[in-house]
């Protein structure tokens, strides 16, 4: 262990420069969002992830955000265990009928203001699973989606750009709560 720690201490860091917030993602947000972010959140965003039917490819890449190269927590982004602590719902997968209730309940358990980011091709419109008897559709079929991150699965940098874009938009009024 000493050897490993010493190498980490004296070696160069693995962590890489942050990416620029994605312009396209930023535009999508500007159009879709008329509400708060930075003013309310400062530079802290608590994320609750829900797999609503994914093949687990997206989860692997979301996991990768925590590795030393991307080190997501340095941006104030962190994954939380409870929806009660979350500002943002990160949903993956086509929404299956069997997961629809759990996804919806997670969303309603989150306090406002809150955002929904749909990650991956399936979360956009059901992807290659659209049309199945078991699939409701994309996340937008159930929840108001603020941002889509494209990709199958989206690479960690794409996810990071999308999440940063949510944080970089200043001064949005508080979202009216959905009953």
């Amino acid at each position, binding site marked *: *262990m000493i*050897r*490993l*720690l010493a190498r980490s201490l004296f070696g160069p860091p*693995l962590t890489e420069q942050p990416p620029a917030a994605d312009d396209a993602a930023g535009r999508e947000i500007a159009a879709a969002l008329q509400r708060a972010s930075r003013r309310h959140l400062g530079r802290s965003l608590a994320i609750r*992830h*829900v*797999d*609503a*039917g*994914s*093949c*687990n*490819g*997206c*989860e*692997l*890449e*979301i*996991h*990768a955000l*925590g*590795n*030393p*190269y991307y080190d997501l927590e340095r941006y104030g982004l962190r*994954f939380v*265990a*409870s*929806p009660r602590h979350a500002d943002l719902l990160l949903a993956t*997968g*086509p929404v*299956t*009928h*069997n*997961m*629809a*209730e*759990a996804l919806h309940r*997670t969303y309603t358990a989150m306090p406002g203001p809150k955002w929904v980011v749909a990650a991956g091709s399936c979360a956009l419109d059901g992807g*290659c*699973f659209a*049309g*199945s*008897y*078991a*699939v409701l559709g994309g996340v937008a079929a159930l929840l108001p989606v603020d941002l889509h991150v494209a990709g*199958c*699965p989206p*690479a960690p940098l794409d996810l990071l750009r999308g999440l940063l874009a949510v944080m970089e938009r200043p001064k949005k009024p508080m979202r009216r709560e959905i009953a």
Partner: protein
Amino acid sequence: MSPLGKLLSDTRPVTRHAPWPRVLAGDATWHAAIGEFCAGRLVLLGLWGERQAVHMALLDEAHSEIAVLTRECQSGTYPSVALHHAPAARLERAIRDLFGLEALGAPDRRRWLDHGAWPLSRPLAVPPTAEIGRQDYAFLAAEGEGLHQIPVGPVHAGIIEPGHFRFNVNGETVVRLEARLGYVHKGIEGLMAGADLARGALLAGRVSGDSTVAYSIAYARAVEAALSAAVPERAHWLRALCAELERIANHLGDIGAICNDASFALMQAHCSALREDVLRAAAACFGHRLMQGSVIPGGMATDIATDGVALLRRLRAEIAARLPDLAELYDTTTSLQDRTVGTGILSPALARAFAAGGFVGRASGRGFDARRAIAYAPYDRLSFEVPVLDAGDVDARVWLRFREVEQSLSLIAQLLDGLPGGPSRAGLPAGEAPAEGMALVESFRGDVLAWLRIGADGRIARCHLRDPSWFQWPLLEAAIEGNIVADFPLCNKSFNCSYSGHDL
């Protein structure tokens, strides 16, 4: 004569089913097969339905022989396998939910994949029936003074897939765990029916994202077997290269995550960085971090990048240089060992009875590895060991992953050294239709079974993909018994069963 040979001696195989025989079975053969499972001479490899038939794949481990028994069920019923052989239970429940075929005498008649939320019931039967709606799910009971239940999921605290775990506990000790799955059922087998071969490959690669390469190989090999298609040698070698990269990436991720579940973040930091190195190399070589879509029927979608071989040599050397330090870190951290040694023990007898594949089986003494037993190309030309341990605890499943990463590194070296030239893709012959093909491919998690029938129109008539998790999930429930609730994440991660692969 081998047990399988004896079983099939009075039967006639159907035509155009490759590479192993499929026979129509009467009641006698069906029951004889169940008897062989119970006696431990044959292994249940899969059980899946069609509109009016049930197929059962059998493996004779000692002789590495495989066959499929088909029981026609015009009346919509067939004799239950699970009545005598428990590993079939959830497969029978899934068949009933999807096709409406009843297993006569089945010990468990609860629905499994169908949670009452679909717009229709028995969606793959003809015709489907109206949905009967939500019903309470009767979890198996545990009774006694002081017992209470802890319901967990489907939404969990971490970034993982959804499933429900119902713990019955006495204080801190788990008395009984029952999992309820099916939350991520996407209806893949329904989408497969009528799809063309390219769309089939796309879907097969998304059954379980972490095993996309293994699934793509299994699907491609089944298609190639059905069409008697020849695949260039180079494609086989490149496929194996992708498969071993996938195995290393997943094992590294698992080792880190298991240790992290014991709050030992240092291992997670190192392993996740190494895993990232593997994924970046995969993206540079094959154009996708998880190598999704790299393997297609007929060969590879794209050949390895021009500088790919050199890149992978450097990656291999890097991991080989750093792995011993990580193994030593694991081995010498007593606080970590305190959590893993003796935790979540899976008995060799259960692993054998359920034919558990992958690290779950091999950490409990079952040495089956499809790369060795079936020896599909190019593994018949490569030299490697199949590590087997028999402690069956979390610790053994961690060590097995270390040992398998070492073997995969050795395989990658051999693959890079011996990579044949020539094309990496061949066109698929039209083939005679209908035709059926089958394959068994070793994913990082265990053996993936692919079976398909190509119809007269050249499209997929039926495709079944059986994840290794089907035979591992029930064992997790056995392994956790008598452990404390706080050790469940460790046990669960050390099994790392696929939710999506199981739910389909």
